[in-house]
């Protein structure tokens, strides 16, 4: 069975809603990393007059989860709908391959390590 890593960079106040939505989907685990970051706007706030010339890193959160390949589309769809506000700073989602998952305590690998 194939697995994918989904990494979501988003603003601080969206985490709680995202957690609840992913929990309802049956996602069994996630890791949240406090981060600093910016996108093409270089950290410019939506109300500012001009775009910043040098990137300014803003506080963000990165949520990392691993799901079965078959669930990726559904999970990404839920994440997009949960994070969308139409404002700059809604976030980004990265999807990448995972070659294996191992549960340290039991040595289980693959899907068993997620259950």
């Amino acid at each position, binding site marked *: 069975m194939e697995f994918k890593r989904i990494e979501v960079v988003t603003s601080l*106040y969206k985490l709680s809603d995202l957690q609840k939505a992913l929990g309802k989907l049956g996602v069994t685990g996630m890791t949240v990393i406090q981060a600093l970051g910016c996108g093409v706007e270089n950290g410019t706030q*939506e109300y500012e*007059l001009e775009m910043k010339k040098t990137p300014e890193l803003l506080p963000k959160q990165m949520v990392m989860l691993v799901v079965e390949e078959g669930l990726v589309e559904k999970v990404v769809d839920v994440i997009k*709908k949960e994070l*969308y506000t*139409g*404002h*700059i700073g809604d976030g980004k989602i990265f999807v990448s391959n995972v070659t294996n998952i191992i549960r340290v305590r039991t040595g289980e690998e693959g899907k068993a390590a997620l259950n």
Partner: protein
Amino acid sequence: MNNGKLGLPSVIATGVGLIVATSCLMSVGQGAGSLGITFIISMLMACAINITTALCLSELNALMPNLTGGLAQYTLASFGPFISIITMVGGYLVCNTIAGSAECAMFGNTLTGVFNTKIPGSVFCIVLLLILIAANLHGIDLFAKIQNVVAYGLIFSIFIMGIIGALKLGTGEVVEQPLVLTSNMSDIFSMVGLAFFLFLGCEFIIPIAPNVKNQRRNVPLGMILSLLIVTAMEIILILGMHNYTDWATLAGDAAPHVLYGISLFGEFGKYWMALISVFAVVSTVNSIISSLAYICAGMAKIGLLPKVFMKKNKNDAPFVGILLIGGAMVLINATGLSTTSQLSLLILIGCVFWMAAYCISSLNVLVFRRKMANVPRTFKVPFGPVIPIVGIVGNIFMIYNIASDTETKMIIYRTVLVIFAVLAVYAFIWVKKVMKRPLFKAYEVKDIMAMENELYHLVREEQKKSA
């Protein structure tokens, strides 16, 4: 974050309260008085078209959530400032001012009828408006606490009186008359415009969406159920009116709800309906003056109206909008607006603007489906483009059938076109000279969302001052 506290029943109650107004009862009276119970078909058609609009507005709200400027912001992102100003800023403000004026006139008619006074109804209207303008300028929402109570009182009264009348349980004399006055389809179609007035206002649920639990489901569902419940209430009322009020008398009366109350319960019915409708009218007009002033402020935020509309007085009230909207209503009512035909004409003129605004809203959905196909939507109107297209065709159909006779239609179209022409001149000058933007270039959604931020305007004010 969704901190919504309102559940579906609250959304429905709010929706029904927002949609039902005393002037609707005049529409019911005139429609039923002209067609008999066949008016129900006109109502069902108008309700169906309004449901398509409710669904389209839900999708627009999903794309651009939590906005204060109303329908104008969606149109700004799809058709640009020129169309937005004409149809939404001007058109929408005009139709709401007209609706408020019609409500005021009903207030005057009710008092004149109940107290049998020689004082013209317009005097009562103007006094009421001056009181409400003064209260709003002082930042006082006179009816904040009792607004829901009086709205629900009106709904409850309509419902109960409808059932009592339909089941022939009233104390008045039962009238023997045919159920159907005409089943001619062109007569039915010509009344769809009047029936449309019964269902206006569901879009006012959108601003409360942030306070609704599970808003993605409950806002569209709440809007649809509100419209269906209003339909059911009005149908029961029509059946009651058939049993107790002569159709011809109903069609010609300027306060048919009071007439029905008298027919059903005599003096008690008169005072019951009069009391409830007076409070409901006052509450509705107060809401219109207050909410339109805030909508004007919202439109000024996105640059479609002069910034002066954003100014607030020491009581934190958007006084420019209050004075302008209230003043316009005073002017309209000072013309002595009171007879059924005058009120009907005014209501139908207002309806055309509203239908145009709803048409544009449905078009907005189609434009965004093309421009922003991949943007996530927490609500999407089902069945592809079918429902928006039905909404557009339905609203155009209602505009075409706005009145049964050609002469009245021409008066309505001419009035609407003159007002649109004036708005077009304002829009052209405003967009070219003040906003300095292309007339038809749509704004980016992210820019419109940014304009909701108070800091957006603060930063620009500071820049102007320092320049």
